[in-house]
């Protein structure tokens, strides 16, 4: 247990609500100054975990270490520890008072002097772009403004740990960008340790040093963005991180780290080249991100590259991109620009070649343990 070097550590944490196990034995260690994104679908237990870390809730079992201190399950020390953190709840709640009073309250509760409070509050209101809002009734603010008040209220405390629960859910793109910018700024400038729950993978990727995938109360994988998005550990993670093509297959040969995987339903199978060390006869999933597939009118010949013949089953436009479903003995989804879809004159039934590199294929064991 390296609880001395980590800012937050969670050991064998379980938690239930009404007999239903929500968190199932979590272990997690977050270093001082690290920005950690907790991603996972709705209902995975992200909020519950943050609430437990903020000491709003005592876990069913397991321990939490804060800066090396084992957090007691009750008593005055919990308040002291909680005062070293700030938690921005998913739905911003403003108090029935002015913006100034909203932002000042945490400092007042800590017994800060009047002048210092005024100084700090003015400074932070400027930082979040709410200068001049001091005497506004906080309840008349828009959603984005209220979220910025919530952010200011938390940041003015200069917390060692900042917990954020879906900080931009329900915000418009402009407000989202503002909030994301602020969060990134704080992380850089103050070296604040952050744990941010989000179901927006791009946000996690953009802001975090490390990402943890929480699905159904289990932390299935932690790692940097590339690890998570390129090499999901199992099918559930792969699904969640947008690996749309998850194809069952069997390794038939492995030649110096290039595996040939037989996929598809016909007896001989179709061979896919993939960078992998799995030996022959290993049952696997071959995962390919749809944006890693390019489409071409003819076969592409080169080593370590796949070029599969197929027929277009469906073309759907998706903003500036087109989602193309191809039947090449198995179903493959490719995401190409609309321009190239038009150039290729892709229509239902037309013949295309789906190209992708061997490095774009992520191979994972079937029935991988969770």
């Amino acid at each position, binding site marked *: 247990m390296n609880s001395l070097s980590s800012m937050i550590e969670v050991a064998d944490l379980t938690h239930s609500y009404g007999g239903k196990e929500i968190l199932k034995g979590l272990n997690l260690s977050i270093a001082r100054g690290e920005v950690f994104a907790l991603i996972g679908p709705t209902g995975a237990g992200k909020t519950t975990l943050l609430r437990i870390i*903020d000491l*709003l809730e005592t876990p069913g079992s397991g321990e939490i270490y804060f800066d090396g201190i084992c957090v007691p399950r009750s008593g005055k020390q919990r*308040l002291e520890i*909680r*005062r070293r*953190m*700030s*938690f921005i*709840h998913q*739905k911003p*709640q403003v*108090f*029935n*008072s002015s913006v100034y009073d909203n932002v000042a*309250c*945490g400092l007042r*509760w*800590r017994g800060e002097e009047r002048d210092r409070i005024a100084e700090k509050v003015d400074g932070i209101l400027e930082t979040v772009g709410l200068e001049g809002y001091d005497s506004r009734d906080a309840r008349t603010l828009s959603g984005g403004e209220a979220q910025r008040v*919530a952010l200011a*209220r*938390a940041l003015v*405390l200069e917390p060692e740990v900042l917990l954020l629960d879906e900080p931009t859910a329900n915000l418009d793109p402009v407000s989202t960008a503002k909030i994301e910018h602020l969060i990134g700024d704080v992380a850089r400038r103050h070296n604040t340790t952050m744990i941010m729950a989000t179901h927006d993978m791009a946000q996690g990727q953009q802001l975090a040093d490390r990402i943890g995938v929480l699905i159904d109360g289990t932390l299935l994988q932690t790692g940097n963005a590339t690890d998570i998005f390129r090499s999901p550990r199992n099918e559930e993670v792969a699904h969640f991180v947008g690996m749309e093509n998850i194809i069952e297959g069997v390794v038939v040969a492995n030649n110096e780290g290039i595996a040939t995987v037989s996929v598809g339903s016909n007896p001989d199978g179709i061979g896919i080249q993939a960078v992998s060390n799995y030996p022959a006869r290993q049952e696997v999933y071959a995962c390919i991100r749809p944006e890693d597939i390019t489409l071409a009118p003819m076969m592409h010949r080169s080593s370590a590259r796949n070029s599969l013949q197929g027929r277009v089953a469906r073309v759907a436009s998706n903003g500036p991109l087109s989602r193309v479903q191809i039947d090449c003995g198995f179903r493959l989804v490719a995401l190409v620009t609309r321009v190239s879809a038009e150039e290729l004159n892709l229509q239902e039934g037309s013949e295309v070649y789906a190209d992708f590199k061997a490095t774009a294929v992520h191979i994972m064991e079937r029935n991988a343990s969770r």
Partner: protein
Amino acid sequence: MTEIWYGLTKAMELIISFDPEVMEIAARTLRIAGTSCLLASLISLPLASLIHFRRFHGKRVLINIIQTLFSVPTVIVGLFVFVLLSRAGPLGELGILFTPAAMVIGQMILITPILLGLTISALSGVSKEVVETATSLGASGFQLVLLVLREARYAVLAALILGFGRALSELGVAMMVGGNIRGFTRVMTTALSLATTRGELEMALALGIILLFLALVINIVLNRLQQRR
């Protein structure tokens, strides 16, 4: 009918001319009810907070009992305080029966359930999310109570004003433990009742009009508060 008209004009005269006796009674009424309400709120606000924030067995039942006591008959409270303070009673030694102090005690007992019950429901109106936000921002238990009281301030104030109104307009306690002593414990309700039985219609009507006016003011203030929230 003409008699009533005559009474009404006379009553208005009494009010407009600031008739010393009427004004003195009105002032005393406000003073006694105000004291009752103030003291009762000093007990009720902390107690209501305690009941609201603590989890304990029988909480639901306790709140139900408190709500039932909202409408306890004033004469029952009067009787209770009378027995308590009468010479032979447990607090007879104090010798405060038929004094304003006795009236204050009676009115406090009368309105404490209202203050308690309405304050508890005012506090319940503050969302769990607001409480948790404050907790996350580092409020201690006591600071949390103050914040919640502040968040619920309009509803709490409405509870106090309702209690004040009840103390102002009750008759049973004032009569039974105050004794309607002229210049000492005579308040608007007791004076009105006496004036009516004596046939002093203009006096009764004047007091009645002032009482109604106060009720109106209280109602307006309450409405305002309920709109603020």
